[in-house]
C-alpha cells in the first residue's frame, strides 16, 4: 500500500510540475469563465431565473459538448503514452508493485488533479454568490456532481487511449474520439424503436446530465453508469499493459 501511495504522490507531483498541465488548466478556467459570464450577461432567460444557470452550464451547454470530452484526454495522454515514449514505462512495470496498482495510481492522480479543474468552476459560483446572487445551491451541487462523474469516465477513456502506444497525438485524439462516441452514438439512435434505441436511451449521457443531475436529481443508475464504465476503461488499460506477459 505504501508503494501505491508513493506512486500516486509521484504521479500527482508529475502533474503539478508539468507546465503543459497549467496551460490546460488556464484554458479550462478561461473558457469556463467566458461561458459563465456569457450566460449571465447575454442569456436573458438566465437573468430572469438563475435556476437555469446550472442546467445551462452542466446540462446541455458547451461544457458538456466541447470541454468535457476534450480536456480529460489531454490530461491523461502523458500518463502512459509519454512514459512509453521516453522509455520509463518498462522500468516502472518491473518495479516491485503490481501492474494494477500502477494503472490505478495513475488514474487516481489524474482524478484528484481534475478536482482542481472543477474547483475553478466552483470558484465562479462562489464569486457570483459574493455579488449577491441567490443561487440554488442544491441544483448547482448536483449539476457539478454529474459533471464530475462524467469527467471520471472521460479520464478513464483517456487513460485507455494513452495505453495504446507511445504516440501522444493518438492518445489525446483517441481519447477525445472515444468520448465523443460515448456522447453522440446514443443521441443518434435514441429514437430507434428496437433494442438499439433501448440501449441508446440507457447510455444517453447528455440526458443523464440534463434531466437528472443538473435538475437536482441524483439517479443511482446514472451514478452506476459513470462509475462502471470508468472502471471498465481502467481495466481495459490494465489489460493492454499486462497482456503482453500472458503469452511468452
Amino acid at each position, binding site marked *: 500500500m505504501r508503494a501505491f501511495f508513493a506512486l500516486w504522490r509521484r504521479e500527482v507531483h508529475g502533474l503539478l*510540475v*508539468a*507546465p503543459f*498541465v*497549467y*496551460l490546460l488548466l*488556464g*484554458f479550462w*478556467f478561461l473558457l469556463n*469563465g*467566458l461561458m459563465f*459570464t456569457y450566460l*449571465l*450577461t447575454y442569456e*436573458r*432567460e*438566465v*437573468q*430572469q*431565473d*438563475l*435556476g*437555469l444557470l446550472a*442546467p445551462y452550464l452542466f446540462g446541455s451547454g458547451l461544457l458538456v459538448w466541447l470541454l468535457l470530452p476534450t480536456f480529460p484526454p489531454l490530461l491523461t495522454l502523458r500518463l502512459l503514452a509519454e512514459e512509453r515514449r521516453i522509455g520509463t514505462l518498462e522500468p516502472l512495470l518491473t518495479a516491485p508493485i503490481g501492474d494494477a496498482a500502477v494503472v490505478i495510481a495513475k488514474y487516481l492522480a489524474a482524478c484528484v488533479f481534475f478536482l482542481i479543474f472543477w474547483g*475553478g468552476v466552483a*470558484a*465562479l459560483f462562489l464569486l457570483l454568490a459574493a*455579488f449577491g*446572487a*441567490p*443561487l*440554488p445551491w*442544491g*441544483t448547482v*451541487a448536483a449539476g457539478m456532481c454529474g459533471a464530475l462523474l462524467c469527467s471520471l469516465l472521460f479520464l478513464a477513456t483517456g487513460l485507455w487511449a494513452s495505453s495504446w502506444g507511445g504516440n501522444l497525438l493518438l492518445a489525446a485524439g483517441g481519447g477525445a474520439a472515444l468520448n465523443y462516441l460515448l456522447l453522440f452514438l446514443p443521441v443518434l439512435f435514441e*429514437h430507434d424503436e428496437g433494442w438499439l434505441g433501448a440501449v441508446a436511451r*440507457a447510455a444517453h449521457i447528455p*440526458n443523464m446530465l440534463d*434531466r*437528472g443531475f443538473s*435538475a437536482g*436529481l*441524483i*439517479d*443511482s*443508475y446514472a451514478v*452506476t*453508469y459513470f462509475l*462502471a*464504465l470508468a*472502471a*471498465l476503461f481502467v*481495466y*481495459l488499460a490494465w*489489460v*493492454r499493459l499486462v*497482456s*503482453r506477459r*500472458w*503469452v511468452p
Partner: protein
Amino acid sequence: MIAGRRLRLGLLTLAAGLAGVVLAGVALQTAAHPGLRRRWDWTAEGSAGLGARTAAALRELPEGSRATVFLFPDDPRLSWNGSAVYPKAFARLRSLLVDAAVHARGRLQVEVLDGASPLVAVERARTRLAHQAGEVLVLETPARRQVLRFEQLFVASQPDPRTGAPARLLEERVDDALGDAALQLGRDRAPKVGLLGGAPESRDQAARELFEVLRAEGFAPGWVETAESLRDQDLLLFPGQPLPLAPSLAQAVEDWLSADRPLLLALGAPAPDGVVAAWNLRLAELGVVIGAGMVCQPVAGQIGLNRCVILEIPAHSLQAAHPATRALAESGRGVVLRLARPVRLGAGGGGHLRTELLWTTQDAWIDRYPDAVFAPGAERGLTTLGVAAERLDGSGRVLVLGSTSAFYGALDLALDRDLVVASVRWLLGDEDRAAGLVGVQSLPFRLDASAAARLSNLAVLALPGVIFLLGLIVFVRRRR
C-alpha cells in the same frame, strides 16, 4: 511463430476485454432494475421528483403504456422578452418524466420530442396522437389516452408590454396532474359520456371529432339511442337538439335529472321553440332559463361591424371562479361561439348554487333567428351565454351553454376544446384541484454594468491569469 504469438495475444486481450464489458453490462443491467433504482432530490424545495401518490398510480399502469412529451413553445407571449417560462417548465418536465419512467418500473416508455428531435419522429408522434398546439403531455395505455395541456401543468403570469416584464412561471402541478392522469388510465373503466340529440346530419362529424377529443381525455363517448342505454352513462351530453325527444327518452331524461345526475346541455339559436320550452320546464327548479333569439355584439366595440353568427368571447368575459372556465380565464384565452342564444339565471327552487360562466360585452343585443332582425322589445346589454348549477353538496351538476358550435367542426373544437373538456371534467367531478399547485421558485438576477465588468474581469482575466502565471513560474524553474 511471431504471427502465432500475436494471434494468441490478440485473442487473449480480446477475451479479457470482453469479460470486462460483460461484467460492466451486468452491473448496469442490475442498476437499471426498477426495483433497485433510486433517485435523490438535492433541490432546496425537495420537490424535484414525483410524489408517492403519483408513483403508486404509475406503477398501476398496464404494460405498454407510453408518455409522449411535446416540448415546443406554442404561446409566443410566454417567450416574449427573454422569458424563462418555457426553458424552466420544459427542464422540469424532462426531469420529472425520467422520474416517472423510473417509478413506473418498466411499464412506461417516455418519448421526449423537442426542437432537437428528428422531424420524422415529431411528425410521426403528431399524426399518431392527433396532436394540437398547447398539448404538452400525452399519457396513454394500449386502450386509452390522457392529454395534458401546458395550462394544466403550469401557472404563468402574463407579460406586461408597458413595463417590459416578461411572463414568469408562478406555480406548477405536474406531479398531481400526472398522478390524476395515471389514476384515470388505471381505472377499470373510463367514465361514459352519453350523447343525445345532436343534428342528425352532423352526427358522423361530431362522432369523429368530439369523440376523439373526449377519448383523448380518458372518457368513453357514445350515442344514446334508447332509454335503457341511458342508465349506463355517467354523463349526459346534448350537443344541440333539433327535434323533440321521443316520450320514453324524454321521461328517461327527466328521471336522470331527478336523480341529480350530471348533464351538459348545449342549445344554440337554431334550436326549435318547442325543444327550448321543454328544457325550460325541466330546468326551472335549478333556476336556469334558456332565452330566445340570436345574440349579437359589435366587433371590438366598433359600431357598424357587428357579429351575430360568430361571437368572440375574450378571457375577461369568462368566469375565473368556476372550474369549467377558470383555466381559460387565467391563461388569457377566450372562446368562439356561433349562433348563440342567451342563457340566464332564473328564480329556481333555491336548492342550487348557480354561476354565470361566460357573457358578452355591454353593447350586445338580441336579434330574431334566422332573419337577424332586431325584435321589438328585445333586450340590450350584457348577455349571459352559459350557466352552471349544482346542489350545495356538489351533486346534481348541470351546465347549460347557449351554443352548440364548441362541439362541432375541427376548427371550433380546437378553439373551444378547453371549454368542452373542463366542463365535462367538472360535471364528472374530475376538475383540477388547486391543492396540487406547488410554488415555483424564481430567482431573477441581473448585474449592473460595473458589477458585470468586475465579475467578468475576475472570471475571464484574474482566475485564468493566475494559473497561466503559475505555469510560467513552473516552466522557468524547470528550465533552470
